[in-house]
């Protein structure tokens, strides 16, 4: 392909080189492997593919992955908003430490998070022992999966909402007050709608990440087939059995979910940009 035909000419040099490097690496690293997965799916055929996915164990795994991701992202939606608001609007001792710590789930390897959470919430762990008298078991139940996914998804909502709160104009809140609105009314009717697109974007990003999460979940989940076995783990199991077609079938199902979420994120961003010029 000659990109020159599709681009506005520019005197700046290096377009061919940089475009070439970009497309080569994008193709080799991302597009070709994804094409291999989809190609495998085509070779298997849609009917066969459906038969392979349509088993109770796989449905249980897919719905579990999606359900747990949904619950965790909803928790993160609430606490992410709370954290972002507190970090931007209030001044308190240790604020910067908390602000920096929000990115810990991005920086900490997922396997490390996984074994740490398991150690904490296992029946003989510090939190596990404390919760046992309440009849609450976290580790090796679906609750444990929710917990791991809350950890993983926490930064997404905070980091998408935070800059938007920073750029909110104080005028809006003052105007609302001069028009006789109480503080709670201002928060619900003025602030929250302005934050909604960012909240939705953060929610969708957290959801996309959580649905496919593997490392932090498998240690705490207990991995009981049909109960606490997540979809990515099922792919790993099928691969270990050298059942590549079945692994590909589950992989394609997950890819479809990911693409749907990606489309949703883009749609939210386009919608919000058109309506209020905010992302």
């Amino acid at each position: 392909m000659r990109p020159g035909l599709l681009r506005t000419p520019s005197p700046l040099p290096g377009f061919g080189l940089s475009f070439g490097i970009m497309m080569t690496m994008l193709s080799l690293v991302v597009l070709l492997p994804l094409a291999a997965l989809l190609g495998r799916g085509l070779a298997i055929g849609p009917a066969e593919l459906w038969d392979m996915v349509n088993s109770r164990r796989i449905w249980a795994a897919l719905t579990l992955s999606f359900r747990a991701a949904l619950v965790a992202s909803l928790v993160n939606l609430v606490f992410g908003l709370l954290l972002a608001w507190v970090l931007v609007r209030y001044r308190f001792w240790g604020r910067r430490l908390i602000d920096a710590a929000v990115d810990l789930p991005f920086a900490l390897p997922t396997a490390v998070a996984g074994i740490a959470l398991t150690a904490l919430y296992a029946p003989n762990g510090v939190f596990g022992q404390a919760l046992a008298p309440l009849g609450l078991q976290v580790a090796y139940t679906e609750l444990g999966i929710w917990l791991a996914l809350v950890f993983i998804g926490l930064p997404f909502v905070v980091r998408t909402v935070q800059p938007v709160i920073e750029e909110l104009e104080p005028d809006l809140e003052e105007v609302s007050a001069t028009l006789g609105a109480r503080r709670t009314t201002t928060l619900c009717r003025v602030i929250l709608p302005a934050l909604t697109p960012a909240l939705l974007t953060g929610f969708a990003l957290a959801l996309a990440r959580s649905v496919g999460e593997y490392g932090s979940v498998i240690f705490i989940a207990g991995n009981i087939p049909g109960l606490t076995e997540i979809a990515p783990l099922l792919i790993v199991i099928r691969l270990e059995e050298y059942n590549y077609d079945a692994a590909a079938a589950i992989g394609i199902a997950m890819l479809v979910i990911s693409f749907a979420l990606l489309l949703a994120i883009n749609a939210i961003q386009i919608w919000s940009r058109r309506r209020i010029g905010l992302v």
Partner: protein
Amino acid sequence: MSDIAPTRPVPVTTEPPLVRALLIGLAVAFVALFLFAPLVTVFAEALAEGGRGVIAALSLPDARAAIAMTLTIAAIAVPLNAVFGIAAAWAIAKFDFRGKAVLITLIDLPFSVSPVVAGLTLVLLFGANSALGAWLMANDIRIVFALPGIVLATLFVTFPFVARELIPVMIEQGRAEEEAALTLGAPGWRIFLTVTLPNTRWALLYGVLLSNARAMGEFGAVAVVSGKIRGETATMPTMVEMFYNEYLSVAAFSLAAVLALLALLTLLLKSLLEWRHADLLAATRRH
């Protein structure tokens, strides 16, 4: 009128002190419970048998091989990622062409693909039962269950990091300085080295930092593609899993503690960059 007692006006742009204290308390408790507690646990469990236990664990041949493997992978994948990020940012920010939005979406794609699926795609592409895999095997080229496969998997999951930080910064800085350098007669490579790179170096460093943290910590994709062969293809995170599953708790948490220290170092450097160069990174944060 005059009998209304003058009270202090209620501020209209913040919450009452009690509510504020409550919200701050909730936020701090949430962070302490969900973030600090697991972090402390890593170090506590590693030190369960004292400092000697940690040293003994880290001197295990498997642990040392895993550390070497992880360093090797990061040393290959991170520079490649930086090259890609710089090339992508230059092409996207400095030129106008059609299909740019689609391209950016494709670059972001790895963020929404499960790491396990990423590993799976590589196994399907290069594994023994694909056409390409059979040919590679015949020619004695190993990709899956070997270093090249792990590097590819790492590249996949870290792919957007550098590009995502650089693109908004380069777009915000515009083309005027590069054009000025052009009119002064500077050749292309010189413009890049003396004008573009200095202007974007903090954003580049930021992206490299994040990319490196993820490269060293990646688990799912690497677990699938590496085959987790001890002393050969096992990385630090996959070795953590194997130690843990063998009930070698101190060994698992010692290796995990090294990774956690790396994460803390990453966060520290990242925060320093954000505080010192807030203006230069503003564009990435708005992204």
